[in-house]
């Protein structure tokens, strides 16, 4: 829609509007536009297409910034992944999808039903285990999540499984006792297996606004968050808040969720994400 126009103040306002309505947030939008403005002043951008490309390049730069290399799921020995996030973000569903993807890569997967609190949480994960034809370790309702996940890891060790995916109950990052429970789960996983969990992924709903930053900060204080899974990008929300999140916290986005079925998970592409913002 912007192609073919001459560069003027209006163009920057239009780009700012795109950034704002994509949940990029005022501060990050300002930072991105400042970088573009300085290129403009230096005469480096001759038309609108170049301005938009420059903006996308800034975004890709930030998103590709986290210097982490690929996720730590390959190599010898059992890998343990802990999945955390606020209520309803898409943790359980993402585990179902991730299992499908890992199995497609020739790995064996075991699921740990670490949500012992919410109504029918274990039943929900059981259905995903059935769909993937993979083992699941669960506990009684109200059981201690740490002990269920400890059992999941020891079961995986005895069954020679490649990856354990640990589901946890949704929780708001403002609940001190629930965040402490998460820290405890993390410690217990380390006791069950040296170096576990090898990845701690925060599941973020793309429809969430600036609160995502608080979520990332608080969850990172409770457990060492090593990656983000950004869900529900098949909707109209753009998830722009991850740009500021990556800039501030240096956590890479690993996967995106684009639907409710088994195969609706894709590895994150910074370029694809930047394109979709302006799409």
């Amino acid at each position: 829609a912007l192609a073919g126009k001459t560069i003027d103040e209006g163009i920057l306002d239009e780009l700012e509007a795109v950034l704002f309505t994509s949940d990029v947030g005022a501060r990050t939008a300002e930072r991105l536009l400042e970088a573009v403005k300085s290129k403009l002043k230096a005469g480096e951008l001759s038309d609108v297409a170049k301005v938009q490309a420059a903006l996308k390049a800034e975004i890709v730069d930030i998103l590709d910034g986290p210097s982490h290399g690929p996720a730590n799921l390959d190599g010898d020995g059992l890998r343990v992944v802990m999945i955390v996030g606020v209520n309803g973000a898409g943790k359980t569903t993402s585990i179902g999808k991730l299992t499908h993807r890992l199995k497609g890569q020739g790995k064996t997967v075991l699921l740990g039903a670490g949500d012992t609190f919410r109504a029918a949480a274990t039943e929900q994960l059981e259905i995903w285990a059935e769909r993937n034809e993979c083992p699941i370790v669960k506990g009684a309702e109200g059981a201690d999540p740490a002990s269920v996940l400890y059992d999941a890891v020891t079961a995986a060790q005895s069954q020679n499984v490649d990856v354990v995916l640990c589901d946890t109950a949704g929780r708001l990052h403002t609940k001190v006792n629930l965040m402490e429970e998460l820290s405890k789960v993390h410690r217990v996983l380390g006791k069950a297996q040296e170096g576990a969990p090898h990845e701690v992924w925060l599941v973020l709903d793309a429809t969430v606004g600036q609160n995502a930053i608080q979520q990332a900060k608080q969850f990172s204080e409770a457990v060492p968050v090593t990656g983000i899974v950004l869900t529900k990008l098949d909707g109209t929300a753009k998830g722009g808040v991850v740009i500021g999140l990556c800039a501030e916290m240096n956590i890479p986005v690993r996967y995106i969720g684009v639907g409710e079925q088994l195969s609706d998970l894709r590895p994150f592409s910074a370029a694809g994400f930047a394109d979709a913002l302006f799409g």
Partner: protein
Amino acid sequence: TVSKGFKSARNYLSGQSELTEKNTEEALREVRLALLEADVEFSVVKGFLARVKEKALGATRAVAGKDKQGQKLKVGPADHFIKICYDELEALMGPVDTSIRLSKPVGSIMMVGLQGTGKTTTTGKLAAYLQKKNHRPLLVAADIYRPAAIEQLKVLGNQLGCKVYTEDGVAPPELCKRAHQKAKEMQCDVVIFDTAGRLSIDDALMEELEAIKTHTKPDNIFLVADAMMGQDAVRTAMEFDQRLSIDGFIMTKLDGDARGGAALSIKEITGQPIKFLGMGEQLDKLEEFRPDGLASRILG
């Protein structure tokens, strides 16, 4: 943070003797930042700021009362400006209407919204709320897609001693119609339809909601929205409202620290009242909406 934005606006104005075009613009810039950070939608922010500016410059000098000599005391520009913002926000949030319309012999409530917003949990909370008012709710498991969704509603029904209607192999519109028809013989006087979460751009699923509405003509269609929602609040609310004519909405997960600006956006777009606030995962954590709490939360 939001309060930082409003503090800046106040600090900036406290050095001024009165509200002028110039200093109001500057204060509004701070408020704009604050509202965007509170997740109020971009065009809603614009509208809000325009109205505040109009009131700030159009108002005659605000009067705080009279001093000992009966002379009128003038409110300082900073306090006056903040008060205008707060009053405008409260006015936008209201008027308060937490009523649930219920026909006889069987009233009905249809719960709709995006995935994961808290519809099923809130269905349980509304049932608990209605039970306290001596109603006998029937929960209808109209989410036939999500793994263990029916089971989830049954668990909640069990906790409340509340009946749950479910039927294998029946599409949601027909299922809801049958539940509504059978409610009376099941000794229930309200049916609550828990529907599957869906994207507002999913035509087939949005048509399913329209079909449920056609089949059951519900007394209330409540949009259940997550308080931490960002700019998408407007797009989503608009689509749900245009398709279904929302009667009211419920903001969930307000026990977190999300500012809740989405509430302002949804109210602005639908013109419908905020009915309830979800304040936790337990079934007793539902509050009737009051504007002052949410207004000060958004303003910080």
